[in-house]
């Protein structure tokens, strides 16, 4: 994954974790036994731990088949998706 893509993924996940109603409750399990909350997911990815690297590989795999925007949008609510689109449109106009 390109560094720029990784930074975008982390930024979207940070916003996603900040909006999460229970950011410290486990939501994802790597089936060797460890469970991760939204906040932990962000920490693991930022820290490039073994779990973080697996999660980054998961994003990398998705990005080989789906556009970055589509991947990132699936972590945004409708309102934040609209806000992101507006920001991109404004940035594009300048």
């Amino acid at each position: 994954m390109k560094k720029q893509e990784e930074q975008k993924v982390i930024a979207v996940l940070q916003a996603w974790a900040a909006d999460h109603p229970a950011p410290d409750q486990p939501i994802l399990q790597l089936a060797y036994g460890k469970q991760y909350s939204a906040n932990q997911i962000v920490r693991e990815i930022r820290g490039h731990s073994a779990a973080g690297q697996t999660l980054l590989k998961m994003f990398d795999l998705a990005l080989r088949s789906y556009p970055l925007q589509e991947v990132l949008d699936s972590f945004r609510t409708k309102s934040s998706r609209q806000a992101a689109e507006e920001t991109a449109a404004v940035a594009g106009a300048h």
Partner: protein
Amino acid sequence: MKVSIIRPTNDPTAFALGRWAPPVRKAIKSSGHTLCADLRGRACTRAAFEEAVRASDVAFYFGHGEYDRLFGKASLLDAENVEVTSGRIVMAVACSSARDLGKKAVKAGALGYLGFTERLILPLKNQFALGAFRKASIAGMLCLLQGGSLKRAHSQMTQAFDKVVNYFIDGPGQGAIDVIHGGFIWMSAFWNQAHIKLLTKKSAGPRTRSAVAARP
């Protein structure tokens, strides 16, 4: 055919995966096959595992795995005893084992090994999604029990995960079912699907089918 289910249930994750076995157990009986063993918990020792596999044409495993072994409290299948799979089919709902152990099993004479080559990633909060993951993970087993070939079982499993991906990325699940977790649900389904691997000897397909059909 003679079928064994092996589910170590030695910790919460293995226990959760073991709970995916009942529909398979039901299908074994309803489709006229023989359930040789349903090993779980403390009964799931290495010796009992080997005995169950030897007595079976097909072994279905639900539990922990690594690249080179399946394990509960102790190692159950690894390079040291992989020859017990010779002449048999193994399907493993477990992390990573299809990568190295699967290759070793086929090299040791297994007719086929269907499993995952990387860590499984599972959503926890959405029961609907978890149910879909369960269905997808056992789709290959159910297909085989209904007389499908290994190739068809592999294809059914892949398609079932595909359905989960499509449902959550741009189907009714997008935003509607789980706004917060939808992203990780489809991506983990996509990840799991990408790491499904069927290993066979080139001639295993037709031979497997006739071998399965010949043994009631």
